[in-house]
């Protein structure tokens, strides 16, 4: 059974005329890693907020259709129940620091304190989560003294530690260097293999191609294209609609016109490009 089930979801923020999401139908299996791509204003963040329950519970506005996660219906739940199943981390790490804690360790424990996890279990879970995302050495630092990339890791860890069934991430690596990005992607992949379902908004196509199971391309609040990363990210439809595409894809597309790319399928990653050009 699908963990996430969206049926005809349309959502309008308060005081706006055009809906931010239109007629979204989406099913996601347990343990699936889904990447969401799209231009600014395509509804990526709104989709995240919808899955995480903040639209409409926090933002108000008009929601129609049915949103089901882990067998619960969004319209029949309250936000504080909903967040037990769905974790959300978003782009700006600075605003995700609670401000109530003085060290990274306390910061990560904040969510567990709120939902009433016993102290011994809390400490174990925080230590495990710190080790998982590789920030054990930051445990005693003040979260405010960290760099943007480190803060993003703290924000991600603070949500991972709560062990949600569905993890929703809105550009969680925007301030990280390539090494940090790779590490975070492999951690998220590992979580997905362990049974956590992941929905992630991301612009870094090469990484999506390597790690995600499925890609959803959003345009003007609707799903434009959906499928395996290799297919969606190299599709002509994406290029025609002004999506950001991997430089390897656009290079190979040009090369194909000149007769230099022999394969049928276009590459997304460096490895695929190298292999294709060798032939």
């Amino acid at each position, binding site marked *: 059974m699908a963990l996430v089930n969206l049926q005809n979801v349309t959502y309008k923020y308060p005081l706006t005329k055009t809906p931010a999401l239109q007629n979204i139908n989406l099913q996601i299996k347990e343990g699936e890693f889904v990447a969401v791509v799209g231009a600014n204003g395509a509804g990526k963040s709104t989709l995240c907020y919808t899955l995480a329950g903040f639209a409409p519970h*926090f933002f108000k506005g008009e929601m129609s259709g049915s949103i089901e996660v882990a067998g619960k219906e969004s319209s029949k739940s309250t936000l504080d129940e909903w967040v037990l199943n769905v974790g959300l981390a978003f782009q700006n790490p600075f605003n995700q620091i609670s*401000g*109530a804690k003085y060290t990274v360790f306390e910061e990560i424990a*904040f969510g567990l304190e*709120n939902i009433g996890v016993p*102290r011994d279990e809390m400490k174990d879970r925080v230590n495990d989560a710190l080790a998982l995302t590789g920030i054990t050495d930051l445990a005693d630092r*003040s979260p*405010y003294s960290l760099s943007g990339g480190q803060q993003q890791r703290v*924000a991600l860890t603070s949500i991972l530690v*709560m062990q949600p069934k569905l993890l929703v991430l809105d550009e969680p690596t925007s301030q990280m260097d390539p090494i940090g990005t790779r590490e975070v992607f492999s951690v998220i992949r590992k979580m997905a293999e362990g049974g956590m379902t992941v929905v992630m908004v991301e612009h870094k196509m090469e990484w999506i191609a390597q790690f995600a199971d499925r890609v959803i391309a959003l345009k003007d609040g609707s799903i434009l294209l959906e499928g395996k990363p290799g297919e969606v990210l190299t599709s002509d439809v994406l290029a025609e609609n002004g999506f950001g595409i991997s430089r390897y894809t656009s290079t190979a597309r040009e090369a194909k016109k000149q007769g230099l790319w022999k394969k049928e399928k276009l590459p997304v990653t460096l490895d695929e490009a190298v292999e294709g050009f060798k032939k």
Partner: protein
Amino acid sequence: MHERLSFHIKRDSVLHRLNPLTKLTLVLALIMVAFTSPWYWTPHLLFLFVIIPLSFIGKVFREFFFAATRLILPAAGFLFLMQAFFQPIGEHVIFKFYFLDITQESLMFAFKNAMRVIVMVSSFTLFLLTTHPSELMSDLTRRGLPGQFAYVIISTLQILPQIQSKSQTIISAQRSRGLDTEGNFFKRAGSLVPLVGPLVFGSLVEVEERAIAIEARGFTSKSIKTSLYEIADTSFEKIIRWGLIIIIILSIVLNIWL
């Protein structure tokens, strides 16, 4: 960067290990006794024989001394002068300056009042030096203080330095676009406008995001909150607290009665 965001000095001492509520009650008792005691020398003796020794027990005498000389003494000194000059009591004039005169009585009165203020501020300083704010708040939350209230206090303490550094960034950004922040008073006041706008609106946007972030971490969850730290509270401390509360009540009652 701002690693240190509170007065708290991390040391290992008896005073540090005391339950925050015990310390808070002690501070309150000291203040009440200093302000209500009918005996003239009470605040002076409290400061010399209770507060200063406590700063040694808490191993924070150096920091306490710094805070006292730089913060507390100037304020108390000012209060002393004001009261010495403007308190129209007594006949034994010591010093006359036009219409202002200092009498022996007003001097004594001013000395006592300045000392009372010193007791109040210095005992509170000592409390802040030896108590970690998050420890205080989680202890008070455990005793029934609403979590939202504790959050507002702590996050304000933490966010102030952030706002300060952000306003510095905005000033630099506006200056690089040609904003003149130097000159006479009116010019300077006018240059505040392009600072306040981005600061206030930016902060409002941030508040929304932060609300989402803490909500996502179960802030409004209805389950009973737990705490990462175990805060010691012995039955011995409970007895001390009750003793202090009796002292506080007595000093209030005696003050009304007498």
